[in-house]
C-alpha cells in the first residue's frame, strides 16, 4: 500500500474504523487484524469509489461490510464469524478503554446482533436516518424505530451500571 494513500485517505478516518472494529471484536489481536483488513480492503476497492457519496460514508460502508463478513479461526479451528460469539466475559483485560463507562457501553453493544451494532454505531456517530439506511441498504423510515428499540435494550443491559 502506498503510505501516502494511507496517510491522506485512511488515517483521517481511522477514528471511524477503530470505533467500528472495536464493536465487532473482543481482543486486541482481533481488533488489530480487523483494522488492518479494513485498511487493505479500502485500498483495494479505491478504484470503485465513484464519488456518489462522501469518502467518509464510503469508508464506513467498506469497514462495515468487512466487519460483517470477516472470517477468523477460533481456537477449536472451526471457521466462523468471530463477532457471532462475543460475550462480555470473554473480553480481555488489556482490551479496554480507560473510560469505564465507554467499556461498559461497548460490552453492551457487543451483545446486540451484528446489524443492530452497525445501526447504533452509525447513530452514535450522528449519521442521519437517511445516511444509516443508505449505508446498510434499508428503509429510512424503519431506522428510527429500530434505534429506539436498541437504545431501550442498551439501557436495560447498562441498567444501574453507569451513573
Amino acid at each position: 500500500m502506498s503510505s501516502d494513500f494511507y496517510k491522506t485517505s485512511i488515517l483521517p478516518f481511522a477514528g471511524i474504523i477503530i470505533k467500528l472494529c472495536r464493536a465487532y471484536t473482543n481482543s486486541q489481536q482481533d481488533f488489530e487484524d480487523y483494522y488492518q483488513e479494513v485498511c487493505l480492503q479500502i485500498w483495494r476497492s479505491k478504484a470503485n469509489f465513484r464519488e456518489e457519496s462522501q469518502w467518509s460514508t464510503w469508508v464506513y460502508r467498506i469497514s462495515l461490510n468487512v466487519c460483517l463478513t470477516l472470517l477468523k479461526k477460533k481456537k477449536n479451528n472451526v471457521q466462523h464469524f468471530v463477532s457471532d460469539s462475543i460475550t462480555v466475559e470473554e473480553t480481555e483485560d488489556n482490551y479496554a478503554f480507560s473510560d469505564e463507562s465507554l467499556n461498559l457501553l461497548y460490552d453492551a453493544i457487543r451483545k446486540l446482533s451484528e446489524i443492530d451494532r452497525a445501526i447504533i454505531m452509525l447513530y452514535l456517530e450522528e449519521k442521519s436516518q437517511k445516511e444509516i439506511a443508505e449505508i446498510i441498504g434499508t428503509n429510512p423510515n424503519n431506522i428510527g424505530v429500530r434505534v429506539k428499540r436498541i437504545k431501550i435494550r442498551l439501557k436495560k443491559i447498562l441498567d444501574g451500571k453507569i451513573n
Partner: protein
Amino acid sequence: MERSIENIWKEGFLKSDALVVPKINDLYNQKSIHIIDKFKRMFKINLIAIVAFSFAFLVVSFFVGIPITGIIFFVTLSVLVIINKSLLNDLEKLDMGVSSYQYLKAFNQWIKKQIAINKKISRFLYPIIFMSMILGFWFKDAEGMPLGERLVGEILYGFPDIYLVFGIPLIGIVVVVFILALLASFGGRIYKWDLNLIYGRVFKKLEELITDIESLRS
C-alpha cells in the same frame, strides 16, 4: 442522574487512549483474512490443482495404455475449470463499497450460484469419470485385442449361457448402470455436504444477516 449513551460515547472518545491507531506494517503484502479472499484463494488453488492433475493424468494414461480415460478426464476437467474460472471472475466483480444489503446479497447469490452449478456438474462428473475408467480399461490392449473383449471371452468360456447385449454381458451392464445411477445421485450431495462442512456456518450467518436487514426493509 443516569448518563445517556450519547454522552458516554462522546465523552469516552474525548480521552486520549480511546482512538489509538494500531500500527500497520507492510499492509499491501499482508495475506487477506477476508472470507471472499479466502474463497478466491481456495478456488485458484483448486483450479490449478485440477489443471495440473488432468494434464499429468493425460500423459500417464498414454504410457499405461488407457488413453481414452486420460482424454475423457482431461476434457471433462477442462470444462470444469473453464466454468469455475468464470465463477471466479464473477466473485472478483463484487463491490464492497455498496450498501451492506447489496453486498451481502450479491455475495450470497454468488455462493448459491456456484453451489448450484457445481452440484449439477458433480452429478455428471463422477459418472463420467467412472465411465472413462471402464472405457479406458475396456479398450486397453491385451496381447493384440481389447481387454474388454478378452474378458468377455473368458466369461463366456466359464458361463456359455450368459446373456449378451451388443457383445457385453447383461449383468455387467446392469452393474455399471447401477453404479452410474448411484454416482449421479450422490455426486451433488457429496459436493454440498463437503462445502457445508467447511463453510456451513458462514452460509447460515450470511442468511441471518440478510434476513435481519430485510426485516428493516419491509
